[in-house]
């Protein structure tokens, strides 16, 4: 009798662990790779495992995390958004231009700039989505077009110059650190990620994002309009580009038409390393956060290790691939766990 109870508790415990492992693996399985990388650098790189260093990594991670959060939505519906980098550039120059306009009080300027930056991003994102859906075009090429257009616009708006002199309250907020370790811009990024996570997991909209990524035609034939949701998803990606632009301004205090070059690939890499499938329908935004961490930790860790500038890209490229290879074993492991 007691033996059977023992067995039951054991079984329950085993199940509990199974479940825990399974859930954490599902949401952020690539975290294993991150932990390995963190362990490696903590052991080898001087000053790596210090609070100050983590604070700095948090700062460095924020922009890509925000961009990648929006990108996760796009990739989940099976699209891609190459325009986020230059949308960011455009939004930084628009935001900065408004902020340094002497006609406004600092606070007015800040509020207006945030609205304009996020509005511009969202509007152009919506244009991306609308064109894709209206003519049924691949988002790759539409957003590639937008990449060029937005980068041209950024040059025109800024007249090719770096814009400085942002209002003091704004700069101060950018320097703020919460609880001694979390910089304000990191908090923004985390809030964005949490909202994204919540939306994807708990809302009807999130359900549609996954459903459309899995089988758009089935969603359409179930009496819905995937079109709307897809446009919304691109709008979100544009919006996060606008938010990322604000984060950029908070971090660097300058708006620049050449900001954000190549950021789209970084954001996409974070999403994919995080386990979201490029063909849509599968993935998690928490994974994206982990993916962004991997990319930045690698780069910072290598610098602290004193790696040669030429060797760095080689190591980063190799580790990106190793991380996804490791992640592929997670899939197998999960299958094994489940067939037990």
């Amino acid at each position, binding site marked *: 009798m007691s033996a059977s109870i023992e067995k039951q508790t054991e079984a329950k415990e085993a199940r509990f662990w199974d479940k825990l492992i399974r859930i954490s693996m599902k949401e952020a399985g690539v975290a294993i790779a991150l932990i390995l990388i963190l362990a490696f650098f903590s052991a080898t790189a001087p000053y790596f495992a210090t609070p100050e260093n983590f604070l700095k990594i948090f700062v460095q991670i924020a922009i890509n995390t925000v961009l990648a959060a929006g990108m996760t939505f796009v990739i989940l519906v099976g699209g891609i958004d190459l325009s986020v980098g230059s949308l960011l550039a455009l939004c930084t120059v628009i935001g900065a231009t408004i902020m340094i306009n002497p006609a406004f009080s600092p606070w007015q300027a800040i509020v207006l700039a945030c609205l304009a930056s996020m509005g511009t991003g969202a509007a152009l994102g919506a244009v991306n989505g609308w064109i894709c859906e209206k003519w049924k075009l691949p988002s790759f090429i539409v957003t590639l077009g937008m990449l060029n257009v937005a980068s041209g616009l950024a040059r025109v708006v800024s007249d090719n110059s770096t814009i400085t002199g942002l209002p003091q309250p704004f700069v101060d907020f950018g320097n703020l650190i919460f609880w001694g370790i979390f910089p304000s811009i990191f908090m923004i990024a985390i809030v964005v990620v949490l909202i994204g996570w919540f939306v994807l997991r708990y*809302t*009807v909209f999130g359900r549609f994002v996954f459903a459309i990524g899995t089988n758009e035609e089935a969603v359409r034939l179930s009496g819905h309009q995937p079109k709307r949701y897809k446009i919304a998803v691109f709008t979100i990606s544009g919006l996060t580009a606008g938010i990322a632009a604000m984060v950029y301004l908070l971090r660097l205090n300058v708006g620049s038409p050449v900001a954000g070059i190549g950021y789209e690939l970084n954001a996409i890499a974070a999403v994919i390393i995080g386990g979201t499938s490029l063909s849509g329908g599968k993935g998690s935004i928490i994974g994206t956060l982990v993916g962004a961490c991997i990319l930045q930790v690698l780069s910072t860790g290598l610098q602290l290790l004193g790696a040669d500038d030429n060797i760095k890209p080689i190591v980063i490229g190799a580790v990106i691939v190793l991380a996804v290879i490791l992640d592929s074993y997670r899939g197998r492991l999960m299958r094994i766990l489940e067939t037990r």
Partner: protein
Amino acid sequence: MSDAADDDILRLEGIGKRFPGVVALKDVSMRIGRGKGHVLLGENGAGKSTLINLLGGVFRPDDGHILFDGKPYHPASPLEAFKAGIRVIHQELHPLSNLTVAENLLFEHLPRRYGLVNYKAMNARAAELLEEVGLDVAPTTLASRLSVAQLQLVEIAKALCYESKLLVLDEPTATLTSKEVDRLFEILKRLKQRGVTTLYISHRLEEIFDVGDDVTVLRDGQHVITRPLSGLEIPEIVELMVGRKLADHGIFKGDSTVSGEALGVSGLKVTRNSPELSFSVGKGEIVGIAGLVGSGRTEAVRALFGADLKAAGEIRLNGEPVEINSPKDAVAAGLCLATEDRKMQGLMLDMSCAQNATITDLGKISRNGLINRKAEDDHSQRLVRELRIKTPSIHQAVRTFSGGNQQKVVIAKWLFRGPKVLIFDEPTRGIDVGAKAEIYELLWKFAAEGKGVLVVSSDLPELMGICHRIIVFSDGKIAGEIVREQFDESRILSLAYKEYSRVRQH
């Protein structure tokens, strides 16, 4: 010993196969006699396709071993299966839609010269094969232009073009009408004369007597019996399959009173040049649409539902004209359509049963845009119970479901929505007898609730069993309408051929 090896072309011993959360096959041992027509039966999810996938080299068994033609047989890939002489026509179609019919047919070994495709030889050979299965399309047609049934015929033709010792057919007739089925059986007979063994799976129990000598029944992944078919009757077989006696499902229960019009269609034109279609479905009435493969039934119901743009036509629901330009309009107005192709159009395969079932009406399980998990689980739990969907959990991805259970999920999602008029395109495609009976009960229940039901099916006996009225399509036109009292198989068939024979005459 050597005798037995001579008699049996295939022997399975203690075969087991597990998937995440399911045991698909458990300790299955069976033999198939050389040169025999062997029928494999079982409910949905009994493990038939799994067994066949093991034979075809798609999966590997977890336990047990296989002897084929006297030799141990453990195929690691479809190629090894081909080499050993086993060919499989899979239940799920895998067309190369951007390639031509000829290329699809001969893809296993494209006629080649110096690495170049010999198009001439390929098209000629393909034309022969198409002729043989009676599929009237040009070899150069793109496969994406074919309907499901036509693809099924291509799949059959494909298996014929190479010699094999064992031919496995996993529900080849699910989408075929009697014309093609007859053709197929002729072919199978010819193969049998050549000494080819066939392993045949079907849920249309009437037809197995035409092709089978022996029968094996699986239930819940376990072997139940293997014996000669002769002397067996359908009710007996059904009992073996489901493990209990089943009420006769053939009895017509559409005793609801038909009153008023639920769905009215007038002047529906699928394309600008296609003929006008007008028909109606009464409240409480089940109307069948019969016709040959490619007669335009699917096209008509898709256009009606707004899935494809229609060229013209007025649609009335409960007497009120409704504007339907998209599935959204249709669903909002109270129509629903269970599509012919459940995999591509009906289901989100990688999502859970619960998520699939509730996609039609997320409003019911959410408040302020937030999903109420408990409501979702409760509702889907109820649907799974009502429709007897076989699954370890409502959170299981429907990709892992057997074909029949997938079909039930499609029905579940529309049941969840609760429409006024239900349109089913091949609702029992690939569904076992037990489930069929359940689905018929459901249709009658819908009718009894005063809803209109429109059923497209290639299975004529089925239509005659469940409908109040049958509309017969022929070459895109409505060739005639027959009420229940006058149901007669040969009459329906002659209507279905009507337009085609007229074309011939010209």
